[in-house]
């Protein structure tokens, strides 16, 4: 054996020895491998002063810690699933728009993630959750405790939170978990308008919009519903059910995005060639239906984080019901949309409408998913599937608003329907003490009309507040830098003029034939 290999052998032996010490040095050890998993996890695993003999307090401490740990892991994993919905949105929106604008549409969906996170970190999270109070399911830290409110009618009306700006002074595991989860929700709302405004929106205008929605528009309304603001205290202060209840964000997330999409698309105007002189619409087909379908299914997958994750607690076993409700409503939405197009509209089971139906069912069940039984969930989904088609046609043919992907119909209209459905179908089996009101959440059909009124107020306020702020923001952008690309750029495709790079380099696109002629 020569000198070199001797040295190597010595080093390897040393490493193995150290590994052995590291593995065997733990207090808890077993020598035989455990293929059935029967030995792993025992009394010795409980953190105790004297290993293997924990005191009663040490045991209950460990149980409490495990509960919070399950909640936190659940919240984080659900948040990761919701983050993946960005992919779904990007694919749906890009698939339903034209090849010549694919880079631009994809880039908007990508960069709202980056811009949104920084905006939400900057002050969005503080405004939304700065006054939410103790985080019950995530460890109980109560540093987020300052709500700015005004006194009206003898009640304090919470407007926005003030703690946790830049996550300053809330260096707490629970708050950070909550931040991640709420952050991806904000992103979902923010990425909805990019579909409705696709193919003609200046990227610079989009970037500025991204800052506004993540720092102000979304957080303020979100605070009203989830952060202890005045919509959530409608029940406590004015006796309207449990206040505006929105389990996972039909109004907070989806309707906000849908209303912004409607306002933005109205201000931006239709794409060139979308409408004829007599006002009749032309079809502008998307360039990749397979991609859009995959995106819709990815969204449906992400929704299992969106709805069940909104318990913020893996130990809240209602998650089983929530997940099944979510699944059933999406299926009902897709089937309803397919049948409605097939038999009553164009005599074809239009794939883009099937996708929209699937998503509409999901959006509609988002608010009521925890409060309704599965039969109601199916009904909510069925209504959503039909509603989304009627809404699409109404928006396209009556309002004359050009929405390439149907974002307003899917998220705006069905977000409102979801909240109203909660006020109708909540069956009183869940939500004891929700928003500080005793008793379970019960809807109109189960005997509590006031819950329905609270939902109506929440929906109307969303339309007024988000619509107004959205209008101001889009108008401001319009006046200062302009919202819309030049017509010749739009005809040529805005990939090159806005982003500088084509989506499908090397593939010849028939750019002019993709834009219909206005007759």
């Amino acid at each position, binding site marked *: 054996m020569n000198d070199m290999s001797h040295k190597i052998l010595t080093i390897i032996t040393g490493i193995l020895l150290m590994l052995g010490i590291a593995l065997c040095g733990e207090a808890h050890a077993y020598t035989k491998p455990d293929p059935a998993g029967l030995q792993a996890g025992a009394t010795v695993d409980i953190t105790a002063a004297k290993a293997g003999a924990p005191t009663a307090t040490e045991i209950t401490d460990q149980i409490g810690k495990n509960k919070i740990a399950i909640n936190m892991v659940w919240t984080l994993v659900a948040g990761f699933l919701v983050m993946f919905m960005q992919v779904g949105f990007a694919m749906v929106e890009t698939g339903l728009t034209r090849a010549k604008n694919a880079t631009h549409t994809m880039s908007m969906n990508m960069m709202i993630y980056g811009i949104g996170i920084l905006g939400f970190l900057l002050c969005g999270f503080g405004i939304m959750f700065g006054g939410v109070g103790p985080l019950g399911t995530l460890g109980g830290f109560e540093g987020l405790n300052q709500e700015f409110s005004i006194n009206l009618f003898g009640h304090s009306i919470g407007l926005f939170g003030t703690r946790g700006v830049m996550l300053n002074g809330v260096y707490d595991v629970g708050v950070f978990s909550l931040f991640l989860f709420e952050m991806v929700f904000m992103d979902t709302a923010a990425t909805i308008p990019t579909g409705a405004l696709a193919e003609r929106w200046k990227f610079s205008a989009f970037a500025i919009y991204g800052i506004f929605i993540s720092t102000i528009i979304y957080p303020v309304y979100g605070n009203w519903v989830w952060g202890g603001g005045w919509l959530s205290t409608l029940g406590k202060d004015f006796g309207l059910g449990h206040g505006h209840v929105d389990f996972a964000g039909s109004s907070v997330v989806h309707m906000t995005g849908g209303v912004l999409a409607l306002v933005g698309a109205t201000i931006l105007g239709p794409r060139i060639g979308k409408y004829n002189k007599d006002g009749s619409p032309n*079809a502008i*087909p998307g360039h990749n239906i397979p991609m859009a379908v995959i995106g819709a299914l990815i969204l449906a997958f992400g929704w299992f984080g969106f709805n069940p994750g909104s318990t913020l607690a893996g130990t809240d076993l209602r998650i089983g019901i929530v997940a099944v409700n979510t699944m059933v409503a999406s299926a009902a939405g897709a089937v309803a949309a397919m049948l409605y*197009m097939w038999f009553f*509209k*164009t005599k074809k089971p*239009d794939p*883009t*409408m099937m996708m929209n139906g699937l998503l509409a069912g999901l959006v509609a069940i988002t608010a009521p998913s925890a409060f309704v039984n599965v039969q109601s969930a199916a009904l909510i989904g069925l209504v959503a599937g039909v509603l989304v088609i009627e809404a699409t046609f109404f928006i396209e043919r009556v309002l004359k608003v050009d929405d390439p992907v149907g974002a307003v119909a899917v998220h705006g209209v069905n977000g409102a329907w979801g909240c109203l459905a909660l006020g109708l179908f909540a069956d009183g089996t869940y939500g004891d003490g929700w928003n500080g009101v005793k008793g379970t959440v019960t809807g109109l059909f189960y005997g509590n009309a006031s819950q329905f009124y609270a939902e109506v107020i929440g929906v109307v306020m969303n339309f007024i507040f988000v619509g107004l702020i959205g209008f101001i923001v889009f108008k401001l952008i319009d006046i200062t830098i302009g919202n819309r690309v030049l017509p010749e750029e739009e005809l040529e495709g805005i990939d090159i003029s806005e982003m500088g790079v084509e989506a499908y380099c090397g593939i010849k696109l028939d750019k002019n034939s993709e834009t*219909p002629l206005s007759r």
Partner: protein
Amino acid sequence: MKKIEAIIRTSQFEVVKKALHEFDIDFFTWWDVTGQGNDTKHKREIYRGTVRDTSFISRRLLSIVVRDINLEKTIECILNNAFTGEIGDGKIFVSEVTQSYRIRTKECGDESLFNKE
């Protein structure tokens, strides 16, 4: 020398190609073309509830330059094999070619054509 340009159904192309080989016409060029014609009544696409006119026809254009002596059998071959009897079987155009060269050997005229006697 004559140039034969035949616009035929894409579905009949393989049949015509095989038949041409049987007649020893082994060298020709083709490309996919799009056109407008009478056969467009049912070509409609429905996208998100709006009917869209997609009234274009896909055909294959076959271009063959042959010696005069081969003209008749080539045309007959295409006429017989591209035939289905339905509207839209296509057209054949014949035109005079004044000169041709083979670049490698610098031959010109009939000698430069691929298709022998």
